[in-house]
């Protein structure tokens, strides 16, 4: 705990200016799952970095509603890798229809957070 606290303080005090770097891009498409309860969706995620498919990444997919930031979000699920390089799948169970911001936390070869806003009917 103390180590984390010291590191956070150091990061705040001495971190240099923000820099641009090769970051992850994502394309996300979600479809409702047939025969399931309402608001359950299968999402396919295509990840790329510098134009190339990003393989071997671990993706945690969370979601919250932009209309209620911080106050309405779902627990993240881990996406599974599909056969095609850079393609992943995750099943989401949302609370209600509307606009949701999907939060993709990428770790592994690179660490990044990508947010994609989608409208769920």
């Amino acid at each position, binding site marked *: 705990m103390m180590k984390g606290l010291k590191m956070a303080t150091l990061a705040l005090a001495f971190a240099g200016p*923000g820099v641009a770097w090769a970051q992850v891009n994502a394309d996300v498409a979600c479809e409702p799952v047939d025969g399931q309860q309402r608001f359950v969706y299968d999402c396919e995620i295509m990840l790329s970095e510098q134009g190339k498919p990003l393989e071997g990444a671990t993706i945690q997919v969370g979601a919250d509603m932009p209309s*209620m930031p911080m*106050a309405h979000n779902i627990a993240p699920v881990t996406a599974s890798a599909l056969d095609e390089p850079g393609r992943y799948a995750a099943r989401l169970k949302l609370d209600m229809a509307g606009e949701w911001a999907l939060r993709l936390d990428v770790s592994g070869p690179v660490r990044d957070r990508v947010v994609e806003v989608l409208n769920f009917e």
Partner: protein
Amino acid sequence: MDPFLIAVLSNIGMISFLGLSAYVLLLTGGISFGQQAFFGIGAYAAGIATAIWGWPLWMGLAHGAAVGALACAALGAATLRLGGLHFAVATLAFAEMMRLLLGMWRWQVDIAGRLVGPAGTDGFRDIRYIFANGISEMQYFILIWLLLAAAVVLLMLFERTRTGMVWRMIGKDAELARMLGVDVVRHRIAAAALAGALAGVGGALYAHLSTYIEPGMFDPMLGIHGLAYGIIGGLGTPLGPLLGVVVDIGILESSRLFSGYRMIVFGGLVAVILVWRPRGLLDEAFVRRLRGWRPFRSTLEEKGR
């Protein structure tokens, strides 16, 4: 620690700044439905500072707080003559105006081949300071709570000062305070500036953790929550709004007890508490009783000697 727990606790910390912001205005008698505007202004100001200007995080946070303070002080000065319902409506109107303006504002800069900056209703992406600088979610969570703890402690100390007592006096009866020679105008503008700074810091922290902000996030729902946290938690201590946030996000939201019906439950809870304890769970009377409790009283008595 579980990543979702860290995320929830970080959310509790960040939205607590909004609750504290509304609380500071409530102290001086101002009911604001518009603190989400300063949360949003702080988020945009800090995001621009780090993502476009390349400032370090601490300067981005300070920039968010300063711009939030300036904007809220300006609104406070413009609405000085208003009170009660008129002030509440004016703050709501200002917040909606800001949200619409942010929805029209496009200012993107090419940074290493990517357009970065506010893009109207498409939002402001790539506020990636913490990812670019290897700051983990855990470290950022600690930073959020350190800043929140500092804000709460400073507010508690401030409330014990003469100025803090004057602010409560203004909140109870501004006319009486004016008759006693208090410069109500100056104090209300100062309170507005402090409230704006608190909301601005919260927004600045949120922008960097989320990496993405959009004007739709700063709608009246967020402001009503911020106000409700003070009303639920109580106006007797700065810990009140934190209790309100814990009840809403920590218990109702995180437990998924009521799923999509949470907002209805939350609204009902606010209504019940307004009837049962009009000044919240930790109201002034409760805090006074707590201070009169033997361990506290004996400490105070010893200090008195």
